[in-house]
Structure formats: C-alpha cells, structure tokens
C-alpha cells in the first residue's frame, strides 16, 4: 500500500510552469529526500503535499485517499520548517500542545503526548521555557516535537538543518536518523539542497531539476548509475568530470577515443549502431588514478593542487577551459587522488580509470537507461 502517491502532479503560477509530470510512489515507512538546485521546485512540491500550495493538476493521495482539496490539518501530515516556525509567545509545552488544544483533546491526553514527545527528543528540562531561551538545535527539536505529538501519517521536513551551524547540523542529522529508526512506520519526506544530508538519510532520493523528476533511486544507485548528466554531476562532490569522445568499439564493453587524445574503456554495453557516436565520458574525480602504463584516458597540465592530507585534489587546465570556468569550479577536470602527492603543479599528468567506473552519456542521457 502506497502511503503517499503523486500522479502527474503539476504546479503553475499563471502561465509559468514550475513543476510538471511528477509521478511518485512513497511507501509506508520510507524516508524519501527531495534534492535539487535552488529554484527547482522541491520546496514547492513539499508545500503542495502539505496543502500550503494549491495543486494545479494531477492527484495527491495520502493513505489511498485523494487529498487535493482536503485542508492541510486533515491530511494527516505534519511539517517541520527551516526557520522552526515556533510560536514565540508560547512555551515549549504550549507550542507542542497547540494542535492538540485546537483539536480539543482532553487535558490528560495532551499532557501524555507532549511528555512522550519531550522524552523522545530529550526536551523534558525545557518544557516551560520560551523558544527564545533555547539554542538553534533545541528549537529545531521542539519543531520536530510539535510534529510528533500530532502522530501524523507523513512527516514533512523543509530543509530543517539549514539554519544550524555545521557541527550542530551533523548532530541533528544523526538525531533525525535515530528518530526515524524509533518510528519505523512513519513516512517522511525531507527536502534539502545538501547532498550529504540526502545521501546519509534517504531510503530513496528524488532528484528534481528543470521542473520535473530527474531520477529516483537509492543513494548509491544515483551515485553508481546516474540516469543523466544532471544527476551525474549533481550527486558527488566534486562533481563528475564530463569529457567528450567518440565511440570506436562497441559490444559488452565500449571503447571511446577521447577528443583530447587518450582512450577510455567503459563497462557500459553499446550496440553496433552506436559506433562513431559523440558521447560524454563521465569519470568521478575519486575514480581517477595516475596512469601507469601507456594507456591513458586524460592528459593535462596540473594547474592547482589542493593537498588535504587524506586526499589530494588536482585541477587540470584543459585547452577549452577559460579562467571564468575555473572560478566557477566547473569545466575544469578534477582528480581526487588518495594520499599525498607532491610536486605535481605545472606538470603534465596522465590519468586512467577503472572501466567499471566510467560512465557514458549520449545527448545528456546515460547509455545504461535507454
């Protein structure tokens, strides 16, 4: 039974289409993460599920019931906002109890539920404080507590960690993961622009881009088998390198002659008709190694070296990279080598990659998915 089902959902503001053809099945107990660049509509989609934005077309089902026109409070959802959205004039206890009071629950029930949520989130000592007397992390826990007391079918998180500092963000991320484990039956939808959050928390990730879903899959699926160039470059940091080449050998394995010299071998299968096709060869920075034999995939002059101890990042200047591209951090080829590599700056270096980790894209789409 799908707990949350979106069928051909679309959103438009006047003539401007923000989202189109969103089809998604979220099963009960799943934690699904929406990621995408800013402006891709991920928050809008979440707000549509919450009922804060009208759905222009398509249907939204929660627990098998179409809820397009059901008011937010009756959809069985609870939302945690980026800015916490705590009621500043109410104590922590009243903040959490507000929805229950509105629903006219009995005093005993309210107390029991609030105290239960406080226990789960370790908020007991703060119940009678005002939000302004709490730290950012505590405030976010209160916001989560406010969701828990409602015992919703679906939890919605709208970038809940963005307002926290780096250390707290990691701690709270782990808390959310633990919370999910304590409540295995609750479905959670989580919006973030941070791919680390997405990779660590998600059962499945939905990558949104250009008004639609780019790919849905488990974190490692997205990493290992990206469906298109966008997902390939969006997941993983630094982004995957994309180099142009032409297919020269097809079959179980594909051999590509690179435009910049060199030869790439990929485990992606190809058919006879692909021969001669222009493709993009995708290699993640961490999959590059310094070529030892005569075969190499890429050759270039090292422009910048960033030694981080654990790894060394090499930035290559390719003939078609302008200074501007370098500054933006794209188009330059980046290699992430394990350990320390010294005295590489300014030298010509040849790189190769394991064929199992070489991705091929034709017209933006992966050769694996066609």
């Amino acid at each position: 039974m799908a707990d949350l089902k979106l069928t051909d959902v679309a959103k438009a503001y006047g003539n401007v289409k923000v989202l189109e053809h969103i089809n998604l099945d979220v099963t009960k107990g799943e934690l699904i993460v929406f990621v995408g660049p800013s402006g891709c509509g991920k928050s809008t989609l979440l707000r549509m599920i919450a009922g804060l934005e009208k759905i222009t077309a398509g249907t939204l089902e929660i627990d098998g019931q179409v809820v397009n026109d059901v008011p937010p409070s009756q959809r069985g959802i609870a939302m945690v906002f980026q800015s916490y959205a705590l009621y500043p004039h109410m104590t922590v206890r009243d903040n959490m109890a507000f929805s229950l009071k509105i629903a006219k629950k009995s005093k005993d029930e309210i107390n029991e539920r609030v105290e239960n949520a406080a226990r789960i989130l370790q908020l007991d000592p703060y119940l009678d404080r005002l939000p302004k007397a709490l730290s950012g992390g505590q405030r976010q826990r209160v916001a989560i507590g406010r969701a828990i007391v409602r015992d919703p079918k679906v939890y919605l998180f709208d970038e809940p960690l963005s307002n926290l500092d780096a250390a707290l963000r990691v701690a709270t991320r782990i808390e959310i993961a633990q919370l999910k484990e304590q409540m295995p039956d609750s479905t959670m939808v989580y919006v973030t622009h941070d791919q680390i959050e997405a990779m660590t928390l998600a059962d499945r990730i939905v990558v949104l881009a250009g008004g639609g879903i780019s790919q849905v899959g488990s974190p490692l699926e997205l990493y290992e088998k990206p469906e298109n160039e966008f997902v390939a470059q969006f997941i993983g940091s630094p982004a995957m390198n994309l180099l142009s080449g032409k297919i020269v050998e097809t079959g179980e394995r594909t051999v590509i002659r690179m435009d910049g010299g060199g030869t790439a071998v990929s485990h992606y299968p190809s058919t006879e008709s692909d021969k001669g096709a222009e493709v993009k060869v995708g290699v993640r920075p961490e999959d590059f190694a310094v070529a030892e034999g005569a075969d190499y995939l890429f050759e270039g002059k090292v422009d910048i070296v960033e030694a981080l101890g654990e790894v060394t990042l090499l930035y290559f200047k390719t003939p078609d990279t302008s200074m501007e591209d370098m500054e933006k951090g794209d188009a330059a080829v980046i290699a992430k080598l394990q350990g320390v590599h010294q005295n590489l700056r300014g030298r010509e270096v040849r790189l190769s990659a394991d064929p199992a980790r070489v991705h091929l894209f034709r017209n933006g789409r992966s050769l694996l998915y066609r």
Partner: protein
Amino acid sequence: MPVILQGLITIIIGVGGCVGYFYLSNLILDRFIFPAKGENIGRNINRANAVRPWLFLFPAIFVLGLYLVYPVIGSFIRSLYGRNPDTFVGFDNYALLFAGGDFTTAFLNNMLWVLFVPSASTFIGLVVAQLTDQLSWGNIAKSLIFMPMAISFVGASLIWKFVYANDADIGLINAVRAFAGFENPIDVMQIPFWNNFFLMVILVWIQTGFAMVILSAALRGIPEETIEAAILDGANPFQIFFKIKVPQILPTIMVVWTTITVLVLKVFDIVYTMTGGNFGTEILPSYMMDFMFRDDGRATAIAFVIMIVVLPVMFWNIREARKEMR
C-alpha cells in the same frame, strides 16, 4: 526681501550654524582644552573623548531645557498664585479643583475617554489592518481610513457637527432617524452621559487610521511560517488571528494604545468646538481652556494635574517603545 530669500537665508544660517557649532566646539576641545600632544597625550585623548558626547548632546539638552523643563517649573510656580499673578495662594488652586463640581465631572469624563477612545481605536485599527491586508482594494480602503489623520481636530469637529446637526436635512443621524420614521429631530449633543460618547467617536474616527497603519506594519512583520504552522496545526482564521498573530504583536498594540491614551489626555479641541464643555461633556483639557487667560493660576493647576496623570502612561510607553527597538 522676498520670502523665498528669507527662507533660504534662514536655512543656510540654521544648517551652517549647526555645522559650525559642531566643527568649532570639537576644534576647541581637541586643540586647546585637551590637545593631543605634550606629556599627557594619552590622558588628554581619553578626556576629550569623554567630553565629546556632551558637545553633541548640548544643543538638544539646552533647547529641551528651555522649552520643556523651564515651562514645567514655571507653570508649577504660576499655579501657586491666584488670578492676580502677584497674590501667592499656595495650594488653594488645587484645593478648589478637588473640592468638587466641574473638575470632578471633567475628571470622570476624561477617565471615560481614556478607557473608550484608545481601546476602540486600537481594536478597530487592528481589525481593519487585518481585513484590508486580505483585499485587493485594501490599500484604497486604508488610505480612506487614514485620511482623517490629516484633518485637524477642529476641522474634524466641524465635519461631525454636520453629522450630528439637529436637523434631518443636514444631520446624518437625524436623516437616518427621519428615514426610519421618527418625527422630531434630536440633538445628540444634549443627551446626558451618551453625548460624551458621540464626542469620543470623533477622536476614534481620527485615531483609527493611526492605529491601523502601525498595526498593519506589525502584522506584516509576523513570520509567515508561524502562520503556516498554525494552519497545519488546524487553527481556523479566528484562532490564527487571536492566538498566533495578536500575541506576537502585543508589544506594538500596547505602544499604540498608550500613545493614543496620552493624546486623549491632551485633546481639548473637540469638546471645545462641539459643546464648549456644556451638557456635562467637560474634560480636563477643555476645562483648562475655560480658565486660560481668565485665571491662569487655576488653568496651570489643571495643566499640572493632567501632566501628573499622563506621566506614568508616558513613562510606560517610552519603556515599551524602547524594548521594541531592541
């Protein structure tokens, strides 16, 4: 000399005078009094910096002292003298006030004003601010409601004289009565006790715009997410308004309330123009005006009583406003 030239010269002298004052006073301080040289250079710089704020504060303090503190003290002294400024009467003027009669009426009426006008203005202003925010033509409505603010109290009183006119052909109220079938026009200004409220309505009409503008800005300052969170929590529009929005802007509401309260204790124009304090509508400021120029001792005594009544409100108002700014 043409007026425009006079104006220009005034501006130049005024602005130039300010610049000159600050420049010269700082120059004298740094060059001659505590020069930043010699053996005590460190101490001199510290002292000069300690004195500097007072240089900047001095003009304001001086002018306030001249036009505010001195008159207060002067008034108090004057209130100790009788109709003839040479006869010292001690606290007789105050004793006469509290002996009863018109002063008691004025005082009690004023209490009514203080209760009714600020609460009505603030409440209506708050409701209007909330409702007009939801309308496409809300800004036009707001401008209309704000407009009375631009009219002087006397002007407003004249307008309402027409509304209250004792003639079905002129007065709105009597026209409505006539339409409803009542024969004889009435003079609402002569209905005992209730005529006070007809006067207060005029001030409410003027002050609602003020309350509305300030509260509308405050309402817009409420974080949208808290309202969305309340929607998700199942609150209906009334609950959102009274349980989420109003508590969040309570400090602003109180500032608006007290500001209007202070104003109420100063307005004499409305009563003065509408009834002249007759028919039991006297309030403290208009009562004071009755004595002004005839018995300055009594008038200043009343002024002093008004000031003492206003002070705590004023004090509270300033403290709240400061809290808001932080």
